[in-house]
């Protein structure tokens, strides 16, 4: 499986509102589809996404099966100091995909 793709600027000025993009490889099986034998394919999606900066939550979302495969998210964050963004995607099976990105704030 591909690693999550995350785009965070390397540098910013204190007080800047920066753009963050995140894309993770996942089929987002909706639970609405049927296989060739007509059996419902069980739901298996990323249901939660959390982005934190230096330990506190910046942005999060609760995700339903209507979000496309390979879920894409774009959002903003206001940065006042250098630090690390952490990203967590939680699967229906409770497994968590994690990633990190650092930013230097002048």
């Amino acid at each position, binding site marked *: 499986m591909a690693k999550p793709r995350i785009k965070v600027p390397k540098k910013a000025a204190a007080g800047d509102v920066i753009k963050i993009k995140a894309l993770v490889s996942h089929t987002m099986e909706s639970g609405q589809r049927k296989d060739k034998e007509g059996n419902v394919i069980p739901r298996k999606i990323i249901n939660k996404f959390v982005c934190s900066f230096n330990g506190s939550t910046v942005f999060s*979302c609760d995700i339903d099966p209507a979000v496309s495969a390979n879920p894409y998210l774009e959002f903003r964050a206001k940065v006042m100091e250098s630090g690390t963004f952490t990203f967590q995607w939680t699967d229906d099976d409770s497994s968590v995909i994690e990633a990190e990105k650092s930013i230097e704030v002048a």
Partner: protein
Amino acid sequence: MNTNRRKLLVRTLGTVGLLGTSKVFATAEDVEAAIKAIAGDAEITQGALTLTAPEIAENGNSVPIAVLVDGELTPESYVESVAVFADGNPNPEVITFNFTPDSGEAFAATRLRLAKTQNVVAVAKMNDGTVLTDTKNVKVTIGGCGG
């Protein structure tokens, strides 16, 4: 015995869902109920929340949308959440974006699945309880020769 007419009838009935398995879709009422659950008794207003969605989605499997509430977010005044609903999908819920004062700006974008042509509705809830909505109709194309 001519069976053509019978076959045709069966096919025609099948296509309108009498004999075929028909999917059950959410309705505008389901979305209204969901909004009511978020808003409670608060007045629902429009204007400061903008939902961006294509007029025509080339494929319902991946429809880009974005939400934006005007203004900078501060600890005193910020957007708590923007929930997105679709009134023609099997389930009306799509996604809920949760913001904090550290979000800086209440902007979020994603891609969603739309089962057919329908309305997409965004509902923003401010920390003071104010509720905003915006709606866009998205026409979902239905393929060419192969369907």
